[in-house]
C-alpha cells in the first residue's frame, strides 16, 4: 500500500470522472427507486381511479389486516429456508465429492454448472413439464415403480406445490454454491489436514475439525448471498405456479407483480415492496447474529 500512486489534482479528477457515470446510474436507478417505493406506498391508485391520492399509512394497515400478506410472509420464509438449506448442504456435499481425486472430475466440474447457466424461465418450464400430472416424467417413473396408481398434480395440490417449487429451485441454484465451496475447499491448508491425519483423525473428524472451520467464512457468505437471491427470486415460482394454488406458493416478488401489474394497485404493491425489504433485512440480520454467536462459541 506504501507505493500507492500519490494523489495529484489530475488523479483526483480522473478518479471521480471514472466513477461518475456508474455513480449517477446506481444513484438514480437503484437508490432513488428504493426510497421512492416508500413514498409511492403512501399513495393509493387502482385500475378504476388511476390518479394517485394520498392515504398516508392506511395501505399498511390494510395490508397487515389481510390474511394474504401473512401467508406471503410465511411462504417467503419456508421457500427461502428450504431452498437455501438444500442448496448449501447439497452444494457442499457435492463440492466435497468433486474435490476428491477421481477420474472424470474435470468434466463433472464443468458440467455441474449447467443448471445455473440455463435461463430461469426455461428451467421452470422444464420442471413444469417434469411435474405434469399426465405427461410428466416423475409421475411416469413413480407409476411404473408401483408407488402410485394415478398421476399426482404436484403443482396443483397446495400441500405439495411449495415442495415442488423448492426442489426445482434447488436444482437450478445448487451449482453456484458448489462452485464457491469447491474454490474454498481448494484453498484449505493441506498441511493442517495432513497433521490431523498423522494425529490419527479419521476422514469425518478431519472434515469437522479442520476442513469445515476453514471454510466457515465462505459458507456464511454463501448462505447470506443465496438467501437474498432466493428471497427475491421471481422466475421459478411465477412460471411454475403463478403463486397458486390458492396463494400456497405466493412469495413477495410474485405478490408484488400480481398486485402491481395484475390489479394496478401500485400503492399496495409498493407497500409490499417496502415490507419485503424489512423482512429481508430482518432475516439476514438473524442469520448474521446466529453466525456471530456460533463463531464466539468456537
Amino acid at each position, binding site marked *: 500500500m506504501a507505493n500507492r500512486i500519490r494523489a495529484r489534482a489530475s488523479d483526483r479528477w480522473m478518479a471521480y470522472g471514472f466513477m461518475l457515470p456508474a455513480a449517477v446510474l446506481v444513484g438514480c436507478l437503484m437508490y432513488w427507486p428504493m426510497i421512492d417505493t416508500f413514498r409511492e406506498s403512501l399513495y393509493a391508485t387502482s385500475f378504476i381511479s388511476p390518479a394517485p391520492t394520498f392515504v398516508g399509512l392506511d395501505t399498511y394497515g390494510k395490508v397487515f389486516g389481510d390474511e394474504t400478506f401473512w401467508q406471503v410472509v410465511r411462504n417467503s420464509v419456508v421457500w427461502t429456508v428450504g431452498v437455501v438449506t438444500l442448496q448449501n448442504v447439497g452444494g457442499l456435499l457435492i463440492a466435497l465429492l468433486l474435490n476428491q481425486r477421481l477420474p472424470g472430475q474435470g468434466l463433472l466440474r464443468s458440467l455441474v454448472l449447467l443448471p445455473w447457466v440455463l435461463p430461469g424461465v426455461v428451467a421452470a418450464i422444464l420442471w413444469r413439464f417434469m411435474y405434469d400430472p399426465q405427461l410428466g416424467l416423475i409421475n411416469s417413473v413413480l407409476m411404473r415403480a408401483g408407488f402410485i396408481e394415478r398421476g399426482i398434480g404436484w403443482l396443483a395440490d397446495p400441500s405439495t406445490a411449495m415442495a415442488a417449487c423448492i426442489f426445482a429451485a434447488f436444482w437450478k441454484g445448487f451449482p453456484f454454491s458448489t462452485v464457491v465451496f469447491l474454490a474454498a475447499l481448494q484453498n484449505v491448508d493441506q498441511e493442517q489436514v495432513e497433521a490431523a491425519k498423522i494425529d490419527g483423525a479419521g476422514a469425518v473428524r478431519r472434515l469437522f475439525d479442520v476442513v469445515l472451520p476453514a471454510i466457515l467464512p465462505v459458507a456464511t457468505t454463501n448462505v447470506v448471498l443465496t438467501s437474498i437471491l432466493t428471497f427475491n427470486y421471481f422466475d421459478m415460482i411465477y412460471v411454475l405456479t403463478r403463486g397458486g394454488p390458492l396463494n400456497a406458493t405466493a412469495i413477495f416478488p410474485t405478490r408484488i407483480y400480481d398486485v402491481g401489474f395484475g390489479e394496478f394497485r401500485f400503492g399496495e404493491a409498493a407497500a*409490499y415492496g417496502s415490507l419485503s425489504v424489512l423482512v429481508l433485512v430482518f432475516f439476514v440480520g438473524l442469520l448474521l447474529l446466529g453466525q456471530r454467536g456460533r463463531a464466539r462459541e468456537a
Partner: protein
Amino acid sequence: MARRSLLKETLPLTVLQFAVAILVLFPFFWMLSVSLKPATEPFAIPARLWPDHPTLENYILAFRPEFRRYFLNSIIVSGATVLITVPLALLAAYSLTRYQFRALSIFLAAVILAQFFPAGAMIIPIYKMVKAADLLDTYASLIIAYITVTLPVAIWMLRGFLARVPRTIEEAAAIDGARPLRAFFDIVVPLARPGIVATTVFVLIVTWQEFLFALSFTSTKEMRTLPVGMNDYIGQYGIRYGELMASSVMVSLPVIAIFFFLQRHFVDGLTAGAVKG
C-alpha cells in the same frame, strides 16, 4: 492387492459421481429427447426415454416468425446492456482499485449494498419513471433496467480482477511519461482482459434470462424477449411439449455455448469475490 483396495475405496465415490451427473444432466437429456419426438409417437405413460424416430420437425414448427422476433429482441437488449455496462463498470472498478479517496469508499459500500436490492421493491418506481419518459414497450426501457441490475455486480467482479493487475507496470509507464489515461487504455485494459471476458459472460447470462422487468415493461408481441415469449407459450401451446422443448433448447444453446467456451475465466470471476471476501 493394493489395486483392489483402491478400487474398493473409489467405487462408492464413482457411484456418487454418476448420481450427481444424472441429477444435473437428466433434465437436459429429457428436454432434448422430447424436442426430437415426432408428434406421431404417443406421449403415453410409461414414457419412452428416446424417440424411435427422432426428427427436427418440432424445431421447424417452433422457429416461427414471432420466435425469431423474440430472439432478435433478446440479442439487441442483451448486447446493448453488455456494451454499456461493462465499460462503465470497468472505469468505476479502476477508480476503486487505484485511488483512495473517501468518496470512493462510500461509493464502493453503496455498490455492494445495491447488489442486494430486491427488484420487486424497485420495480414500481422504475416503471413509473419509464412510463413518464414515454419509454414503455421499448428496447430502451429494458436496457435501462438491465444496466441497473447488472452494473453493481459487474463493478464488484471487475474490481476483483483489477486488484490482481500489478501496479508496478503502470507506474513504470507513468515514469516513462505516459498520461494516466494512456496507461489505462494501453496497459490496464489488455491486462484485465480475462476479467472483462468473465464479466461480459456474466452480464450476458443475467440479461438473456431476465424475466420480471421484461414481463412488466413490454406489452406487445413485437417487443417481447425470449423468456417472456416462452412464458406466453405455456398457455398458447397447451400440452404441445415437443415444440416447447424445442424452443427451450434453442433459447438455452447460445448461453450454454458461450459458457463452455469461456468457462475457465468465468468460474474465476464468480469465485474471486466470494472466496477472497
